[in-house]
């Protein structure tokens, strides 16, 4: 941390503190400039762009199936959800029918990915608050899910598994048993994690009533996902604007009441339980059959544009694709949930103490790969 002094007015000396760009608590290469008066935060200024690779621009020179690999690398914790969002956009352009089996496998894997992402959040957030144990628990569970991903897709992280029209290859015959065993374990461990941290007195003191954002502010700032629901807004795109086959499942939307750090944390813990419910239902209904709608030659969607909204672990992940009829898109634009959620940081940090800055930042659960693109 660098510290410098600057005189703003005669009676008070404001201290400017530079947090990042390389700091373990910033969850990536992210720089936050904080002006403090004593211990109170006066003003913050986020600086992003350290990881800007021009992903959207690179998309314009790649074919549609190649772009899926680029989407893997946006939100590198919720890869499958990102792949799904782009595939859905192109499928809507082409008006493709997706085989039932592929739809179910996509949903099962995406929900597992959501749990893995929230588990990572759980572990890292515990660490942000000063508790070391949650990280070990969170990473253990995430590793279990990634082992399953590895057996299905062949890769732990950058899966490149979802294809336009379906999925890359069928799952093995013991997939159902494996997932059954996994979610039975996960059910126990979510409870375990919940017991360990959620009502810990020190954790409550650190996170309750900190970084409050009201429902109106949250909507005005465009917050989405768990950060929006923590403020008490009932908005989950899987329910309010269903895509894929999410309208077939019965699950709840956890919402918070106050919009503080603890609400944002607890909504995610509860969401893991709801995801398990979806996976259980999907496993029962998982049909046999084709896994991909074959496309002759290159993927060439008709001319036009389409905007698709999906619910990624971090929130409203939108994909806007403009096609000119060729085998490469004319323009691809991502609506990254972390990018929009990060804007709220300035408002969340008003009148908090410097020591809480890390906790407030952690509660938004940002992934810099997605923020900078």
């Amino acid at each position, binding site marked *: 941390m660098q510290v410098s002094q600057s005189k703003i007015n005669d009676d008070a000396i404001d201290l400017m503190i530079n947090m990042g760009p390389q700091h373990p608590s910033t969850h990536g290469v992210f720089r936050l400039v904080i002006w403090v008066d004593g211990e109170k935060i006066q003003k913050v200024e986020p600086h992003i762009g350290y990881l800007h690779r021009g992903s959207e621009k690179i998309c314009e020179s790649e074919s549609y199936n190649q772009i899926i690999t680029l989407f893997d690398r946006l939100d590198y914790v919720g890869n499958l959800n990102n792949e799904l969002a782009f595939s859905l956009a192109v499928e809507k352009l082409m008006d493709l029918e997706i085989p039932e089996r592929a739809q179910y496998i996509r949903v099962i894997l995406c929900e597992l990915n959501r749990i893995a992402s929230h588990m990572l959040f759980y572990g890292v957030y515990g660490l942000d608050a000063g508790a070391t144990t949650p990280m070990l628990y969170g990473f253990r569970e995430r590793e279990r899910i990634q082992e399953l991903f590895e057996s299905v897709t062949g890769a732990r992280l950058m899966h490149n598994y979802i294809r336009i029209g379906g999925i890359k290859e069928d799952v093995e015959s013991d997939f159902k048993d494996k997932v059954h065993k996994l979610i039975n374990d996960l059910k126990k461990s979510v409870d375990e994690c919940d017991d360990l941290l959620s009502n810990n007195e020190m954790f409550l003191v650190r996170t309750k009533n900190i970084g409050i954002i009201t429902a109106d502010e949250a*909507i005005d700032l*465009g917050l989405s996902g768990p950060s929006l629901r923590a403020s008490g807004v009932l908005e989950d795109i899987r329910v309010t604007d269903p895509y894929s086959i999410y309208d077939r499942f019965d699950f709840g939307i956890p919402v918070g009441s106050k919009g503080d750090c603890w609400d944002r944390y607890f909504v995610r813990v509860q969401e893991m339980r709801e995801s398990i419910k979806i996976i259980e239902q999907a496993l029962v209904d998982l049909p046999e059959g084709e896994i991909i709608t074959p496309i002759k030659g290159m993927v060439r969607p008709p001319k036009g*544009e389409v*905007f698709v*909204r999906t619910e990624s672990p971090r929130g409203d992940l*939108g994909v806007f694709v403009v096609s000119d*009829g060729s085998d490469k898109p004319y323009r691809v*634009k991502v609506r990254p949930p972390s990018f929009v959620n990060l*804007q709220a940081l300035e408002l969340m940090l008003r009148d908090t103490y410097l020591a809480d800055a890390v906790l407030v930042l952690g509660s938004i659960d940002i992934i810099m790969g997605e923020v900078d693109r």
Partner: protein
Amino acid sequence: MADPKNPDSEKIVDPTAAGKSDLKSEVKKPVRKEREVPTVPVNLDEKSEQLSSFLESNCPENISALIGAEADIVTITVDKNNLIDACNYLKNDNKLQFNYLSLVTVVDYEAISETFELNYHLVSLKFRQKIAIKCNLSVNDLSIPSISKIWTTANWFERESHDLFGVIFEGHPNLAPLLLYEEFEGFPGRKSFPFHDYQEW
């Protein structure tokens, strides 16, 4: 094939002349059929149909909006001078209440029609509706009123668009570079930017 009565005919053949039945030149230069590019059919669901007909009958005349549709979303095309009015109408009308701005996109059509198209995707959390506002900018005048006072979400999206495309948002609180650094020259989002040849070091 050459005329057998005139052995020199093959040499006389003008390769650029059209309509020749010369086999050799046909093999060399196959005439490729222009591929017909289909367009995405408009397929609005019931809710969007209602929204479209509501807007056509109720949209205030001073906005002079053009109601259309793309795939499954209703679009409303406005002139940039009417953008603020249109946004205020869509946000504040009791039967619309588009209170959530989802995305601001710039699409570069400089090579095709010398325009930049701005797309604002709005969502009504109350009525679960979607709409896109479209606004065309001439490449000669890339300024447009900022909507960040109506939806705060637009703040960073507009900064990003300023960075990558050079669109100037009038009335924006702070148009400092967001994704790029201060000294960066050029607009890497544009089609005219030598993206793959660009070398920073």
